[in-house]
């Protein structure tokens, strides 16, 4: 099915463009997670299920969680509460 590969490649590029040109950062991070899941689909089409599993668990899941947590840290007013990762708190 070469049309599926072509459609998946076009969708990958479009999702990456939407992730980079999103107006607010939250939408950009969500589109990046969608991009990671589509990348896992592309790895399956490339006969690499091991990379697909690694991409879905690490590339989409863990990176998305880290980015969303950092976005939540940015939503706080500056200097209001101590950073839990800050040892000087």
């Amino acid at each position, binding site marked *: 099915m070469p049309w599926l590969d072509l459609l998946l490649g076009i969708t990958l590029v479009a999702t990456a463009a939407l992730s980079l040109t999103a107006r607010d950062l939250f939408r950009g991070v969500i589109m990046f997670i969608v991009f990671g899941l589509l990348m896992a689909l592309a790895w399956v089409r490339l006969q*690499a299920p091991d990379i697909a599993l690694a991409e879905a668990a690490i590339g989409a899941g863990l990176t998305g969680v880290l980015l969303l947590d*950092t976005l939540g840290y940015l939503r706080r007013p500056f200097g209001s509460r101590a950073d839990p990762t800050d040892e000087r708190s």
Partner: protein
Amino acid sequence: MSGALAFAWSGVLLFGLGLFGFIMHRHLLRRLLAFNIMGSGSFLVLVGLAQDGRGVDPVPHAMVITGIVVAVASTALALVVFRRWYRASGRTDLPEDT
């Protein structure tokens, strides 16, 4: 054009898109997103060009899995450094960019 070659071209496009975003954006989180997209494009080029009609080469697969793990580790490090920078200065970009 085979499917692997289509994915390799998609990887080239993704690399160019990520490089463009990395140059154009000022916000450090957007820059990190662009850098991750650039890395995904290079992984697609690696695996897509390594396949022909004779089957699958496992060596680029191992390289790409290692690259994904290194990418998430460096992303976590960059996010911690970004948090410390935001906490110290209140800015989300670098002063030399303005």
